[in-house]
């Protein structure tokens, strides 16, 4: 599959919302190790709101779809990840209007999102945040941007997974966990885990469409 239309993209986001909502406990547990244990609740709140919104509305462009999702997350989640994760979707505001989702479009949305996140949160690769999963995933998307969505999301997912593993090695410099700088070594980052789960959900949805 090389592209999704708007409705299919919307269904993919719905599928992602379900998957992430179901990961609440896992994400709380990870966040609880060195953070405050609420990441799963925030993610659940955000994706629950996104799901409700997507079930009610239709969109004329891919950009509108992503932007609406981002705005919904921004105004429903709260917490650090509310602003951070919503900006990932709001990246769609910075690219030309599209009616199809291709590997290239997805790469562009996520690249813009990544830039916004870095500008807002000031974190860089290696700071033990969701960026450690997101940045390598975006790089893969960009490399695979002429290939199939299945291949692109699959590689991005593996890169994100690898990024999650790497977060275990770093001390946290941003977010709640930064206050336990040394004690955070060995613990994986919650937000990075969410990024992996998001790519995993996209990849699973797209693979299922191919069958």
């Amino acid at each position, binding site marked *: 599959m090389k592209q999704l239309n708007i409705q299919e993209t919307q269904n993919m986001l719905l599928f992602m919302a379900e998957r992430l909502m179901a990961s609440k*406990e896992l994400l*709380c547990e990870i966040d*609880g*190790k*060195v*953070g*405050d*244990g*609420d990441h799963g*609740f*925030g993610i659940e*709140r955000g994706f629950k709101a996104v799901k409700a919104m997507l079930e009610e509305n239709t969109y004329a462009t891919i950009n509108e779809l992503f932007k609406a999702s981002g705005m919904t997350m*921004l*105004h*429903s*989640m*709260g*917490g*650090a*990840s*509310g*602003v*951070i994760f919503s900006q990932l979707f709001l990246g769609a505001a910075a690219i030309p209007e599209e009616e199809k989702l291709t590997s290239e479009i997805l790469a562009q949305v996520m690249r813009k999102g990544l830039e916004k996140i870095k500008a*807002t*949160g000031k974190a860089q690769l290696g700071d033990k945040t969701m960026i450690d999963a997101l940045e390598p995933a975006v790089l893969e998307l960009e490399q695979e941007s002429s290939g199939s969505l299945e291949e692109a999301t699959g590689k991005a997912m593996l890169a994100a997974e690898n990024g999650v593993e790497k977060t275990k090695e770093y001390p946290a410099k*941003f*977010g*709640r*966990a930064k*206050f*336990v*700088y040394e*004690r955070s070594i060995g613990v994986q980052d919650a937000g990075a885990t969410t990024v992996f789960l998001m790519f995993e959900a996209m990849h699973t949805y797209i693979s299922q469409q191919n069958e």
Partner: protein
Amino acid sequence: MKKLINNVEDVVAESLEGFLMANRRTHQQVAGVNGLVVNDINKKKVSVITGGGSGHEPVFIGLTGEGMADGAALGSVFASPDPHTILEVIKGANTDEGVLCLVINYAGDTMNFGVASELAELEGINVATALVTDDVASAPKGQEEERRGIAGLLLVTKVTGAAAQEGYTLTETKQVAEKANENIRSLSVALTPCSLPGSKANFTIEEDAYEFGMGIHGEPGIQKKKLQAADKIVEEMVTVIADDLELQEADEVVVLVNGTGATSLLELNIVHRQVGKLMENKGVVIYDSIIGSHCTSLEMAGVSISMLRLDAELKRLYNAPAYTPYFYKRGEQT
């Protein structure tokens, strides 16, 4: 940990509803969001608002009232409110003189208040922000602006609210909040962890240990230590605070001994006793003390100690009358 709640998702909204039912003579909800403002906002003075995650009660609702904050935006438990909620509270509290947001320095809070302030400015509202960064444990000296905010927010709100009441401009009110913040230090320890509604405790603290340098969200502290007598623990805390604040003989301070949830007042008073003794040894004058559970982390057992160094202005503002549902000051102290 068992809790007296209905549904996990409704905790904050239902709690706010219950609070407002008891305080309708003085407080009202901001329509559509988990936020509140005092009745009869005075349009001729700066409004001070605050807010953050829930689970710290009486902070933030308990900071709102005469001579204190004029409104508060409430997030989910341990999660900053979203920008929409904050924006609505800013709008609800807005006056001809503008709105000052008192925000404790956590990434979530600063980011969400930041986005909300941008949105408010787009709507033509005069809004400013002052951060509270009182927790000495959270970053070394020299990096004070990196520090997180904890219970010191109560004292910063006290003097800032009084300044607004006295007719300070928005800029002046912000400046006085910053001055208070520069003169306040806090440190927190925990004996037991807490658990979010619907979750187990994040981590355990052994029977012979305590966590040193806690934030207010039930995260682990910066260090685990071996449990000791209260006087020893307090001495360690006070030493760090006094050194960082560079307290000198004859300095005057307000002390806040704050329970983090399950700590009995019996214990808080014992803590205060030792703080008093240590300050006396140093020749530091305790102008006034507040002892109580004002800024909590759900049912966590622990204590934070805050000290605000006074100058003439801060003392006058501290002494001004203030009445919230959980804190009062009659303003007649001599």
